[in-house]
């Protein structure tokens, strides 16, 4: 199995520990991996701004960098959704190579559960964890049930976390409301963006969250920015970091 | 002028049509929600939307029950379109202009059946001289056979739409929540709704 790591551009530069946690998890489950060094960005910032001509070269680059791998794994639902669901306008149905790459791009929890059939993480993590359901993972990739739809679906990330010893979860008032990051929205609509983030943080504070986690660092960058500015006592970790850390504290026998 | 607009609009639409897609079959029963006891469900839902349902054996039982309601007895202007139910103070046949119904306090009208899933009652204008009576009285009584269908699909399965200039579903008394989302019963229409479900009629 030839696996490539796709580490989103801002994670590469600002949250290397999330990439390293992903590496640890893949190592633990015996997956050989590579990091194709030419990778940069999937093009989401441009595409979400409506600038499709500007996003195009990055989509072409992505496909070029990642062709030939069996799986491409990323610790980000948002970037995976961009590749899988929003590359349509750049490729035709005949672009088999491109469409293969798109199909083979997986979000981390999806890869662990649906490809590697991981059902539990044998390890310990003692804290009250608050789960932030990042929207694109939830409503684009369907990595869990959205509160609007009346279909039972399991949240892959929540299931993995729940299998860890010693972990408990805070109970939120609004289980999957958007954090307000939204890419350029965070700056273009700064007032609403920050109010949304503040509301999420307050929900977690009231629910007793000690560690705030999510599948996307972009949401967490925004929420952490607010938490740190307000000096709240909440630690922010990508779920890959929690899983990786749990593995280093094995369950007592 | 209008004719040309019609032609232009239709031509514009024709030029813009998407690929045809199928119209889903909607059976009147089968895949839809049903209830163990539709009558009980009907009463519960009607209650939750501010109405009350009384099941009675006969029209005369409905009549007796109605006469035991204080608001009915104290109402000044009472009308009834249901023979044998209520002691009206005004004869509907004597009214020539619906505006004269402005001061009706209480009206007794016909309904056809109820819908369990939403507490609605099907009413039609052939059972009453002025349809405004469903909306203008301060309080409303609907007398109907104790027949309840499970859901709206079943409901539409048993009625013929288009037979009446006016027909409709009524679910509870009139209400609004337009001021700070506080529910107030009695917006423009009836302030209360009592439904007599009559077994003998069923």
């Amino acid at each position, binding site marked *: 199995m030839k696996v490539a790591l796709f580490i989103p551009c801002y994670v*590469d530069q600002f949250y290397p520990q999330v990439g390293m946690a992903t590496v640890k998890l893949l190592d633990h489950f015996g997956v050989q991996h590579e990091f194709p060094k030419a990778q940069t960005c999937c093009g989401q*910032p441009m595409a979400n701004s409506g600038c499709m001509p500007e996003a195009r070269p990055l989509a072409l680059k992505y496909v070029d960098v990642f062709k030939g791998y069996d799986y491409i794994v990323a610790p980000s639902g948002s970037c995976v959704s961009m590749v899988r669901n929003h590359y349509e306008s750049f490729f035709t149905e005949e672009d088999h190579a491109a469409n293969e790459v798109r199909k083979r791009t997986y979000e981390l929890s999806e890869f662990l559960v649906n490809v590697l059939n991981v059902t539990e993480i044998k390890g310990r993590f003692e804290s009250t964890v608050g789960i932030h359901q990042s929207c694109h993972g939830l409503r684009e990739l369907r990595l869990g049930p959205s509160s609007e739809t009346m279909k039972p679906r399991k949240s892959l990330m929540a299931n993995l976390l729940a299998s860890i010893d010693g972990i408990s979860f805070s109970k939120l008032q609004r289980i999957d409301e958007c954090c307000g990051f939204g890419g350029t929205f965070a700056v273009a609509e700064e007032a609403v963006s920050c109010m949304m983030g503040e509301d999420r943080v307050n929900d977690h504070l009231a629910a007793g969250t000690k560690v705030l986690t999510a599948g996307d660092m972009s949401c967490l960058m925004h929420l952490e920015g607010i938490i740190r500015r307000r000096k709240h006592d909440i630690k922010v970790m990508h779920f890959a970091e929690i899983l990786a850390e749990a593995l280093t504290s094995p369950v007592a026998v | 002028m*209008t004719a040309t607009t019609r032609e232009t609009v239709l031509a514009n639409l024709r030029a813009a049509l998407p690929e045809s897609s199928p119209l889903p079959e909607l059976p009147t029963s089968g895949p839809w*929600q049903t209830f163990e006891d539709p009558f009980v469900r009907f009463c519960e839902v009607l209650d939750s939307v501010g109405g009350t349902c009384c099941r009675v054996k006969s029209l005369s039982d409905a009549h007796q029950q109605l006469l035991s309601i204080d608001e009915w007895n104290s109402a000044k202007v009472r009308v009834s379109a249901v023979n044998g139910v209520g002691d009206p103070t005004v004869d509907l046949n004597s009214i020539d202009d619906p505006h004269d119904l402005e001061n009706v306090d209480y009206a007794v009208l016909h309904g056809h059946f109820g819908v369990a899933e939403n507490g609605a009652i099907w009413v039609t204008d052939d059972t009453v001289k002025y349809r405004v009576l469903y909306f203008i009285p301060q309080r409303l009584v609907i007398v109907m056979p104790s027949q309840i269908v499970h859901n709206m699909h079943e409901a539409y399965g048993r009625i013929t739409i288009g037979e009446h200039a006016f027909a409709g579903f009524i679910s509870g008394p009139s209400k609004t929540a337009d*001021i700070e*989302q506080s529910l107030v019963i009695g917006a*423009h229409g009836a302030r209360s709704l009592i439904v007599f479900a009559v077994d003998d009629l069923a």
Partner: protein
Amino acid sequence: MSHPTLAQDFVDNKPRAQWHDKALWFVREKRDRMAASVPEWEDLRSHASAIKMHTMSQLPTYLEMFEAKAKALGVHVHWAADGDEHNRIIHDILQKHNAKKVVKSKSMLTEECHLNPFLEKNGYEVVDTDLGERIVQLREETPSHIVLPAIHIKKEEVGECFHKHLGTEKGASDPKYLTEAARGHLRERFCSADAGITGVNFAIAETGGFVVCTNEGNADLGVSLPKLHIACMGLEKVIPRASDLAVFLRLLARSATGQPITTYSSHFHGPREGSELHIILVDNGRSGILAKPEFRRSLGCIRCGACMNTCPVYRRSGGHSYESTVPGPIGSILTPLRTPEQHSTLPFACTLCGSCTDVCPVKIDLHHQLLAMRGFLDRKKLLGMSKKMSMKFLSGLLSSTWMFTTAGSAARTALRWMPRFAIYNPLNGWGKQRELPEPPKKSFREQYADNNKNSGRPS
């Protein structure tokens, strides 16, 4: 003005913005409970979507069928290409009947056509009879929500308004008392009206009739007394069969307000004895939307307002920040399609969270359309220079791996060494209320290479 500016104003009054958010979230939660009580909820949504898509694909046929059936029932059917023509038609009908006093129930279409100011200018008395609409009318405002027109107004403000216009007690703010006052005030209008105007929720092609849904009973009161009923509908309101109503009536009120059905679901087929019924079929841009494949599904909207209630941005910026008859997610598609220049910020008042898409009873892919709308504006060169230039720059930078890693490392170094006041300057929109990430010394790609070196793996 732009959405961000008006939204900023709204958020500046934090307690009020929070109150607004909670009021709408409460409605969303009621909707969730109601949706959950129907086991086939998701199937209903799929059916509703399929019925609408099918209808779109044969819209002219169904409209003609509807017209023929309605005429056979004795209805006068009119066609209007735009709002002006719609208003003129109403003016002509009213004139013919010598009708001066008009009562109107809620109709987003007449709002869209700006019927009220038109009629008032022409000397008619127009009274909006839906309580919420009456409140905004008396306050000389527009509705801020399509189902809850006065959701932005506090009861104390309604009290003040009613004190001024209806003579209620000064300082009174009890919703029950105020509703009662409006009931008395509007009864007089109902009883003296010459004509009643309503919207249309659903028009049935196979029968030539239409359905109007209200909770207050105002539409029915408004058209059951006067000798003239005018019903205004957008072309997209037609559905093929009466049995389709089962699907839509099951979805509409549950999605809109969390009720099992509206109090009154009235089916009109032909005029009342001794009176006239007119139906106006209005295009006003709809055929243009049908012609745009990426946006045509927006014509399936049944105006339930659920996408507004769930939208985290709408809840925190208020309906008026959209400066559009239909606000929120669906409005941010429909309005820029008509007036892209004036409304170019609307599709960006959205995080693409997708909650609207999942809540929509007709399964309109709202957030995908909002994304597509951004591309539509780009193609019309309406994104604004600074956005376009920065995206061009970013695209260039990210296309080259070397430039990207160099810039990344420079940014991290700068962030580590720059003094706080230089980073958190007024130009830094991010930093006004948020910290920037703490930059690591080494990027992931550097750490990965180190890791491989240490473990003897090829990097």
